[in-house]
């Protein structure tokens, strides 16, 4: 049995087992965990069968359909199964005694099944079918856990259906143009297509995937949809689900259309298809990141970053030079690790305190040091500071954009990073720093099964930061298999060229700096720890009845600066779109007069038109 069928059948078996034994705690917990572990093991071993093809034993429109293992989908399969396993371990304790546990693992397996199918498929039909399974299970994931969840899931549903319909148009159009569904066949015939048609077909696919990966104007479903569900699902969804859209973009942009074909789509001078794509990516980086500043809910704040970080991957891909593309692909795994780490830390806090409201928390570092450390590693990665992994991929992207002459896209990436630093500091400060409210005095650190995934991810976040070469090896293989140039990487960063990067030297120097600082620190006399009420308050005495904390409206001043622009640009645009839709709907509504006579005339007209058309066709 090939690994592909093994992966898909096990995921399906998980769904069936969980449906059949929906009351059994053992199936829910341990059998599911075992199956997830097997999935991770199998997908890790997929590299042995790279290039092999597996056909589904029936034909569609006279064509064989199936799955292929490539380096690109090996990379994604690793991430999917790895993060599912960690989520399952984390959920053991987190979901204990919660109401939603009945369907929890069913939808988790369903989603894994769908995603694995999407990334492994080698033709448009399989791709589309699994895409639908994936979208439906995302909807199910979002609609569990909480009162608000079904409403926001419905919002996603509308977007997802639109995306699927657009994708469907693309599938049908490609079949009529190329006479085949197979990716390889389409790739070989793509050059015969006229340029406007190529542009149209590419736009169809890119728009469809952009909705799934929440690119700027199509992002509004994500923050609420992701933050209203269970926090473990938030981790799972932000971590990998959104990035399947990026998989689609990588596959179609580089694998099927090819970068040479895409670069022929020039509009004016330097403004080509890629550049427009890059501008949307830049907006995706800036606007959601600064929207995150306004959030008062930890989950919502991090969900906005899930939108924003997608922009970095896309802008890396849009730069279309070897460094930028590898940066974009590397950012996917980096993002996955630190983002899931952050959400796990938030989930731990929620598990103990029962809230994710940033205005009500504070001072938890004393009670939950491991969760604090996890969040700290995560936010350093998210903000893109050395020595964590987020810095490496962002460095690739900045450098690629500067060197290929896109200064304003590069500064957009910098603005996004600064917005990220601001909002993540708010996150860690309001949750873990500042004054500890009296009601949280008896809180303990979470149990080991919840700490374990966080420790693993912390090691990965730091490890990939110091040794980016571990992931770069796989990425170089992906780039070669897609026919792209490869970056001269080493284990610690970029090997050659001016202004190279060596993360090991940076980390070692930082450790050395810390050591020197520690020696100077030890020169002074011993420090004494004091409690939080032993504090400067301008002569007043502090006790537990005095609220002495600053976390509400943390960035009020910069909000004053941004607000006018936000109101002017975004709200007016939104109002304009609403007005337009209203006006159009008003005309559409008039079709439904409510009188039976008019409807009879409609039916008659449709009938006549059909007959006329049929006559011509025959």
């Amino acid at each position, binding site marked *: 049995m090939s690994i592909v069928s093994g992966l898909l059948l096990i995921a399906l078996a998980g769904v069936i087992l969980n449906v059949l034994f929906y009351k059994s705690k053992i199936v829910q917990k341990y059998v599911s965990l075992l199956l997830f572990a097997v999935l991770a093991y199998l997908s890790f071993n997929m590299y042995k069968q790279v290039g092999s093809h597996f056909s589904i034993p029936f034909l569609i429109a006279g064509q064989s359909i199936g799955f292929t293992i490539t380096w690109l989908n090996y990379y994604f399969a690793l991430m999917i199964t790895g993060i599912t396993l960690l989520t399952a371990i984390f959920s053991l304790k987190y979901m204990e005694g919660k109401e939603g546990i009945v369907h929890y693992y069913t939808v988790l397996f369903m989603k894994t099944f769908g995603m694995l199918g999407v990334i492994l498929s080698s033709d448009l039909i399989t791709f589309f079918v699994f895409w639908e399974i994936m979208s439906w299970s995302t909807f199910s994931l979002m609609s569990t856990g909480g009162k608000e969840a079904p409403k926001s899931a419905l919002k996603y549903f509308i977007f997802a259906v639109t995306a699927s319909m657009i994708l469907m148009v693309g599938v049908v159009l490609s079949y009529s143009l190329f006479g085949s569904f197979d990716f390889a066949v389409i790739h070989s015939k793509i050059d015969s297509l006229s340029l406007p048609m190529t542009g149209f077909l590419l736009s169809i696919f890119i728009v469809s995937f952009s909705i799934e990966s929440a690119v700027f104007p199509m992002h509004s479903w994500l923050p609420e949809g992701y933050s209203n569900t269970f926090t473990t699902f938030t981790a799972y969804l932000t971590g990998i689900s959104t990035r399947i859209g990026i998989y689609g973009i990588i596959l179609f942009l580089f694998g099927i259309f090819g970068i040479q074909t895409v670069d022929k789509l020039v509009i004016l001078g330097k403004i080509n298809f890629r550049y427009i794509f890059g501008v949307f990516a830049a907006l995706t980086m800036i606007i959601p990141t600064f929207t995150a500043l306004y959030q008062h809910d930890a989950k919502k704040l991090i969900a906005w970053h899930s939108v924003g970080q997608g922009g970095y991957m896309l802008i890396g891909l849009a730069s279309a030079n070897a460094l930028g593309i590898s940066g974009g692909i590397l950012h996917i795994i980096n993002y996955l690790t630190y983002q899931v780490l952050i959400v796990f830390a938030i989930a731990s806090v929620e598990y103990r305190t029962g809230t994710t409201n940033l205005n009500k928390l504070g001072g938890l570092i004393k009670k939950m040091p491991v969760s604090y450390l996890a969040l700290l590693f995560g936010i350093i990665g998210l903000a893109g500071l050395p020595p964590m992994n987020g810095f490496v991929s962002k460095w690739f992207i900045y450098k690629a954009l*500067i060197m290929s002459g896109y200064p304003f896209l590069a500064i957009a990436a*910098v603005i996004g990073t600064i917005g990220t*630093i601001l909002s993540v500091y708010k996150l*860690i400060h309001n949750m873990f720093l*500042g004054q500890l409210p009296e009601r949280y005095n008896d809180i303990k650190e979470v149990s080991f099964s919840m700490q374990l995934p966080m420790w693993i991810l912390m090691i990965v976040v730091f490890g990939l930061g110091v040794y980016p070469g571990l992931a770069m090896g796989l990425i170089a293989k992906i780039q070669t298999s897609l026919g792209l140039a490869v970056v001269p990487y080493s284990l610690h960063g970029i090997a050659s060229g001016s202004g*190279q990067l060596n993360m090991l030297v940076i980390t070692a120097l930082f450790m050395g700096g*810390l050591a020197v600082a520690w020696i100077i620190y030890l020169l*002074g006399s011993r420090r004494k720890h004091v409690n939080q009420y032993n504090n400067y308050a301008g002569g007043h005495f502090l006790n537990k009845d005095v609220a002495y904390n600053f976390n509400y409206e943390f*960035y009020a*001043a910069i909000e004053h600066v941004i607000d006018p622009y936000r109101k002017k640009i975004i709200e007016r645009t939104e109002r304009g779109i609403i007005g337009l839709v209203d006006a159009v709907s008003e005309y559409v509504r008039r079709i439904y007069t409510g009188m039976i006579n008019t409807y009879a005339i409609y039916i008659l007209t449709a009938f006549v038109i059909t007959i006329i058309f049929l006559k011509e066709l025959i």
Partner: protein
Amino acid sequence: MNTVLWIIFLPIIIFIIGTFMLGYSRKFIARIERRYGPPIQQVFYDIFKLMNKKTNISHGWMHDIAILMLLGGTLLTLYFIPVPGFHFFAQYGDMLVIMYILLIPALGMALGVGETANPNGSIGISRALMMLAGYDIPFFLTFIGMAMLNQTTSMYELINIQQAGGFFGWGLITNPLLGVAALIALQGMLGEKPFEVMVAPHEIATGPMTEMGGKYLGIMMIQHAIAVVVELTIYINLFLGGALNWFEYIIKLFVLFTVLLSVNAVFGRFRTDDAVRFMWKIPLPMAVIGVLFIIF
């Protein structure tokens, strides 16, 4: 061997220059305000006194680590910046790396101050981060412009390219818009007036320093002395053609610092939102125009 000596003695040399520069700044401001001012070595005395304090109050382990991150991160930045005669580490990290490791001490500081559970400190950090959004965007854009013009992101190569052109090869001369924009941003980066909101002694009790005392404050002062030199050196290397020898380097440091101090001496303090707005309305468009000149 030479490299090892540099690694050991560079922080000490820079620290001594930095403390004298801080002492000079106190004297300079005092003379403008018609005071006599403290002696120029006063900062040494202050640090010595603070390091010898018997009571050192700490609010938790992050507070202790933060102070190490603060100084350690600054030393890290120091090594990556080419100074006359020493550019060994410049080959392992370019200007992009420097811009981001500059933020490590800031982050460490922010976390430690957060743990002290003093709202004055948190307000100070919140203001400092907002100022970061103000000055970092124009400063980064000027750097991107210089990097694009010279097709390198390495600071050492930027110095060499400028020095090859002599005085007229300086970034400030070839790209005056970028140079001036970066100078204004530098004023914010150093936290000199009018961009002094994060410390603001009369409003928020010196902000981040509120709960720092004894050796904590001492280490902060050591770090401040080094950080001032580091940030000025970044500007010198980008726009003033670096320096060929230490004499020229120190002259450039003091001249540049005097320019910034003269602005500092005559201004009041901008409100945070006004400061950010100023940064986005004056230096940022200047930098954008400067970059447009480079593209076309």
